[in-house]
């Protein structure tokens, strides 16, 4: 019982991180109907920026994190404004292929700039942990969870309580009507991609604090973001949290009963089941999840 409770707690902590990561993927998909297969590479770029800021510029982690977010924010804005906006009217699989090509190019650039070596930051939080109700919580995991939840709440506030959030939502419902009411649609699209990028950058910074990473490690994060978004439902923040925690808990439970080689397959089995039984996801809303293509 104690063991199961500990596993569920680990799953929840990991799930918070998954939820935050998936939101950056989800917002781009929900608003522009673009599945960004280069998302994992953007996370890796965030991780590399963080590592360089800490090791070469000597910045504290709290300063490196916004720097990583800024780098991927800018990258996201430029990508959408210069390239992806041209594909806005095309069929869904054109953008899918396009971002796959982009991902290959980014992986190659990362390989040239940072080599294929697996890297990690010197362990910031060590192995220290505190205890709640007999369950141990490592400081590192708890910090990641807290930052991820703060990002999630921040995105919720941005989308619901600011003019920019209203513009993004209006554009996602009906780009033509948004244009008629004076919204600069290409700019809003670019900002949305940039926000998704910033979340990828923060995710990357969090990855750098506790996990090892390499240019090729990005793909598994893209896949996880996929699973979480489909589980929870496209464009739903509560959905992302529920989907993330579900995936975190299931993955941790599965490692108890199954060989560790099945870890990723368990997530995908869950994904197939949800797609077959409830294609809109557990918390998916109309409009956001509407397949436009």
């Amino acid at each position, binding site marked *: 019982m104690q063991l199961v409770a500990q596993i569920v707690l680990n799953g929840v902590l990991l799930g918070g991180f998954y939820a935050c990561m998936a939101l950056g993927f989800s917002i781009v*998909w929900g608003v522009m*109907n673009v*599945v960004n297969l280069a998302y994992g590479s953007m996370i890796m770029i965030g991780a590399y920026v963080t590592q360089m800021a800490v090791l070469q510029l000597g910045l504290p982690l709290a300063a490196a994190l916004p720097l990583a977010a800024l780098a991927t924010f800018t990258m996201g804005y430029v990508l959408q404004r210069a*390239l992806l906006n*041209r*594909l806005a009217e*095309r069929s*869904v*699989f*054109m*953008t*899918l*292929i*396009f971002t*796959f*090509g*982009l*991902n*290959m*190019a*980014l*992986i*190659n*650039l990362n*390989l*040239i700039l940072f080599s294929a070596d697996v890297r990690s930051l010197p362990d910031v939080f060590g192995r220290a942990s505190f205890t709640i109700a007999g369950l141990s919580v490592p400081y590192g995991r708890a910090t990641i969870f807290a930052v991820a939840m703060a990002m999630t709440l921040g995105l919720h506030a941005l989308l619901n309580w600011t003019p920019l959030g209203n513009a993004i939502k209006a554009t996602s419902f009906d780009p033509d009507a948004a244009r008629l009411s004076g919204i600069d649609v290409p700019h809003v699209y670019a900002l949305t991609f940039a926000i998704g990028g910033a979340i990828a950058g923060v995710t990357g910074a969090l990855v750098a604090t506790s996990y090892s990473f390499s240019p090729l490690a990005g793909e598994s994060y893209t*896949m996880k973001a*996929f699973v979480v978004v*489909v589980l929870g439902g496209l464009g739903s923040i509560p959905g992302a949290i529920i989907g993330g925690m579900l995936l975190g808990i299931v993955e941790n439970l599965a490692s108890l009963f199954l*060989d560790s*080689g*099945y870890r*990723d*397959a368990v997530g*995908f*089995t869950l*994904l*197939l089941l949800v*797609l*077959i039984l409830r*294609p809109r996801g557990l918390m998916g809303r109309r409009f956001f999840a509407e*397949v*436009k*293509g």
Partner: protein
Amino acid sequence: MAASTLRARWGSGPWAGTLRSAAIGCVLMAILMVLPSFLSLYWLRLLTSVLMLAVIAQGMNAMAGFVGYPAFGNVVFFGIGAYGTALAIAAGFALGPALLFGAIPAGGLALAVGPLLLRLRGHYFAIATLGLNEVVSALAANLSGLTGGAAGLSLPLGAGTAGDAAQRAYVGFATLFAASLLLGIFLRDSRFGYGCRAIRSNEEAAEATGVPTLRVKSIAWMLSALLTAVAGGLYARWVGFIEPSLVFDMAISVKAFVMFLLGGAGTVFGPLIGALLIESATTLAWSHLLKLHLLVLGVTIMLVVLLLPDGAQGFVARHWPTVRDRLRRRS
């Protein structure tokens, strides 16, 4: 004189397009039959891999181009075909029957999960097929008793020299390529193919006019799976060693996708044109810019999508009239 008579007899009527494609196909196959005697082993291998990719791209085209369902994870059938065939060969079967051990499970899987997954559209269908590939690939990597696990599976060597083996692989893939052309012509010109295209342009309308959409989609996916699985089986025999990360590699699917897109979606010869262009570009990148080959391929993909959204054939069709007018005016 003779040409105009021919055109009068065959150039019009309901089967004109079919006959023209069949004639082009026959000429192509004749060239492919003569070509090996002029090629060195290196170029023979390259041509074999072009044919293999053209076949996989045609399998993708059958689903994504003709029916409009982006079966992104189609490489799962390639992997199943490779493993089924390899295991049957290891058990002592000849290549011909062994290919069935790859093709039948693949076609069966498409028919079994088709009715479930083909209710999804767009990205959701693409992701579901991707998930299917991940699950099957994980099974192949972990059921080590059967498949050899992540360490892979070695096949017993065939008879003869390396040159003989390369010749056999070439003949196998050329034959399969002919079958893939027949599938393309069938999907373009048959009643069944009209059903597929009706689904692509408007599924609700197709259903309303009496196309049994779910059945047509499932059968089209099964045909695509069979073609891809036989390609996987021939590949396993050709290279002699397979492992899950090699034959369930998503990059194969994506390459196939870009190829049929580049050649022209929903056309008979598009996959071959795309395979020739992309494979040449890849080979050039491998031999001259080894460190940049992913970058070159990635940027090529991005440029294809940005500049040639309707493929090379569409690009020519769009720009040929203007070019022709300009040439006429100058002369």
